[in-house]
């Protein structure tokens, strides 16, 4: 592809991308150093006392969430891409709106809804009588429920994307050869979707492994929660690092799987996207479609939002929404805008470096930049903390430390988003610019950036959304008095102040909406 320009040389982008990659690997280095200090007997102690339980807990949760997201994501994607029905556009939206609600908000809302006095608790008592205890969420099923409704949208997005691009001609050929529609689905369509589904599920599992908010609210001990408790409850940084090391290995497996299947997916999708034909839904189908999608939406979006609205109204009535609240909103915006901008800029040299070289080194850089995906927030925060305290003490306690953590945490998102559009930037395009006398800077401004625009924008938006929702690293690293909306939700939720947690949750959702809309519009334009 780029055989003409693979002369390795020290260029600005190689220096810059090396710097970025080094920075990104700080937390991992920290984990290695600290877990290296564990003695053999400490390791065997960890191994026998904690690891089996944690592995079992974490993996069983991951499997349940994968199953849940598969059922929700694939069914909704199939119905929406293969049938024409009233409100189809709306349905697409309803399936991605859950992404605007962070997992810990879902957990908080559902624990209060399922209490005896909560809406669902009352409903339960109304149906089954007062004496039948209502189901509790403080177990693997509760955690799986919360993480599935919070994460199935990733599967939905990837699968519906694959479905719109999939080779309809093959399905038609299968039909012509006498297969029933059901057979076509199981024997042709589903196998072709496998890479998309697998990539989506791997992504969901990665989120499960690094989730901190929901599992800590539901007190379900996974690796991430246990690491956090080791760090903050027992001052045992080495054991925490040891556990992190195991978690890294686990996450890495899923990250590699996800990459693998994503590459396969490219291979499966048609070169010239043939428009998928959507058959008009019959009346019966329509009832079924909206019944099913309505059920999903009720739990994954409508009910939580209704809860937020009711309690925000309550807070409004009691005039609890004070000046301080708007301060939290402002803090959240400041950190998210800054982190999104920084991550987008930092990801650029890495993506460009790979576009230029496309060799093992640049590929390795790409993987190193993805460290944020395999390390949970608390570990990144701790790595940054000890790095800053020992190397850059003068920035300690400022916003930069928090920014640094956000950068490392969400750099993979930015790199991934840019990687796709960088592929369109052929080296000859740049060469042409240079040969016509453009300076490297001019080249960057007039050729590279315009070509990459889509990638840059989606990188910015993705990092913005995730920083807005970020909890564990913010909890540990925020400058004193700098409370963001997630931090406030956390504080108020642990004090059971429903009226106070609700407005913050609502603000977070509203803050994510416009950017999500923007991203979807761009996505639609790309698939058209």
């Amino acid at each position: 592809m780029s055989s003409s320009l693979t002369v390795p040389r020290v260029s600005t982008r190689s220096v810059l991308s090396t710097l970025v990659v080094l920075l990104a690997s700080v937390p991992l280095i920290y984990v290695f150093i600290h877990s290296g200090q564990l003695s053999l007997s400490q390791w065997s102690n960890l191994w026998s006392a904690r690891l089996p339980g944690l592995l079992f807990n974490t993996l069983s949760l991951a499997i349940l969430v994968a199953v849940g997201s598969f059922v929700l994501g694939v069914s909704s994607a199939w119905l929406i891409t293969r049938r024409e029905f009233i409100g189809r556009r709306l349905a697409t939206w309803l399936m991605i709106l859950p992404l605007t609600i962070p997992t810990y908000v879902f957990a908080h809302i559902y624990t209060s809804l399922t209490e005896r006095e909560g809406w669902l608790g009352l409903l339960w008592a109304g149906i089954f009588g007062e004496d039948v205890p209502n189901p509790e969420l403080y177990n693997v099923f509760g955690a799986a429920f919360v993480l599935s409704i919070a994460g199935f949208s990733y599967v939905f997005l990837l699968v519906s994307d694959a479905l719109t691009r999939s080779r309809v001609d093959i399905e038609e050929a299968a039909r012509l050869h006498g297969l029933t529609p059901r057979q076509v689905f199981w024997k042709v369509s589903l196998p072709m979707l496998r890479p998309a589904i697998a990539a989506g599920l791997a992504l969901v599992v990665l989120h499960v492994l690094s989730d901190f908010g929901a599992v800590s609210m539901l007190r379900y001990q996974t690796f991430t929660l246990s690491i956090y408790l080791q760090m903050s409850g027992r001052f045992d940084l080495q054991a925490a690092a040891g556990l992190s090391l195991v978690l890294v290995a686990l996450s890495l497996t899923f990250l590699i799987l996800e990459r693998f299947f994503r590459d396969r997916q490219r291979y499966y999708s048609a070169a010239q996207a043939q428009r998928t034909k959507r058959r008009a839904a019959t009346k019966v189908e329509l009832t079924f479609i909206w019944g099913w999608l309505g059920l999903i939406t009720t739990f994954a979006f409508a009910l939580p939002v209704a809860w937020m609205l009711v309690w925000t109204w309550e807070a409004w009535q009691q005039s609890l929404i004070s000046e301080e609240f708007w301060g939290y909103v402002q803090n959240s915006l400041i950190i998210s805008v800054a982190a999104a901008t920084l991550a987008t800029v930092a990801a650029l040299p890495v993506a460009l470096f790979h576009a230029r070289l496309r060799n093992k080194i640049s590929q390795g850089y790409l993987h190193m930049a993805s460290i944020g995906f395999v390390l949970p927030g608390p570990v990144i925060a701790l790595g940054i903390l000890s790095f800053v305290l020992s190397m850059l003490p003068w920035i300690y306690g400022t916003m930069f430390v928090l920014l640094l953590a956000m950068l490392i945490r969400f750099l993979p998102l930015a790199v991934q988003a840019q990687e796709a559009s960088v592929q369109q930037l052929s080296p000859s395009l740049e060469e042409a610019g240079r040969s016509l006398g453009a300076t490297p800077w001019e080249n960057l401004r007039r050729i590279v950036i315009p070509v990459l625009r889509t990638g840059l924008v989606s990188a910015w938006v993705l990092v913005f959304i995730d920083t807005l929702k970020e909890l564990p690293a913010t909890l540990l690293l925020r400058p004193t008095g700098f409370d963001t909306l997630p931090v406030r939700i956390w504080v108020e939720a642990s004090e059971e102040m429903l009226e106070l947690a609700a407005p913050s949750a609502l603000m977070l959702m509203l803050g994510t909406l416009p950017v999500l809309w923007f991203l979807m519009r761009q996505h639609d334009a790309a698939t058209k």
Partner: protein
Amino acid sequence: MKRAIIALFALWMAAFSSQLFAEELIVYSGRSDKFIKPVIKAFTKETGIKVVLHTGSSTALLNKLNLEAERTKADLYISNDAGNLQKGTEFKLFQPMDDKMVKVIPANFRAKDNSWVGLSARARVLVVSTKDKSADFVKSVFDLADPRLKGKLGITHSSNESYIAGVTVYLRANNEKVIKSWLNGMKTNVGSSVFNKHSKIVKAVANGRKSIGLVNHYYIYRHLAKHPDAPIKVVLPDQRKDDMGVAWNVAGVAIVKHSSKKKAAQQLVEFMVSEAGQKLFAEVNQEYPTRPGVPAAEKVPTRASYKVADVPMTDLGEYRSATLDIIEAVGMP
């Protein structure tokens, strides 16, 4: 869009620089905002000194303080648990206070070197259903391990700071073997279903889902203030002749060793141990003010009316690891 981003950046820089130059006391607070804010507000009103509350879990904040060492921005540390305060003393994170300043608080409620001082105390008591008589035989916390309470007992999860402190007191008043078998018995009684908040235990006993629970006293009085007719009562455990008495724990404050505003920090501590400050603690959370002569809320049994376990508060820090080891060995949920 571009302009908006630039404007936001300017805003950010402004917020950032105002943070650099402001003369404020920074308090790492492990207490609920609603219990500490009224005291802070009264202090600011009296002295004009502004206070920034950095709220989080007591343990996590202490850990932060420890990592930050001399680079910390914190001037004071407030914890809901004596265990954490004593751990901070062990880590040498605090500045011992003048005896004159804190001697109004009994010696049992502060560190030996006055590096921290207790502000308000709470008692670990039983909340018992008045409808259901099945838990009426319970006279001691150790009775909670009785198989008759299977499925009827409510306790919090074992990483709760009040819970750990309670177990430490019982451990100091007994021995490891007793505590282990007690925890094992309770574990069988609760299965894997424990509560994440004390207030939910009180609620569960009130609505009949559980018969008995182990909680801090103020959760019960708080519930009764909202629902005066709730079918629950307070039982003070371990009051028989040879019993150890009720476990107490204090919330307290310490001045951070590397604070750059020690004078203002001292003023805040002085205010908190003053009669006016102490009264606020009794009001906002129905706790026992540690200063003798300042009464607790009316409904709360007076401290002279029952036996309190004779375990120094400093033990809560010194034996915390031992307690955690036992809890983990038993595998308490």
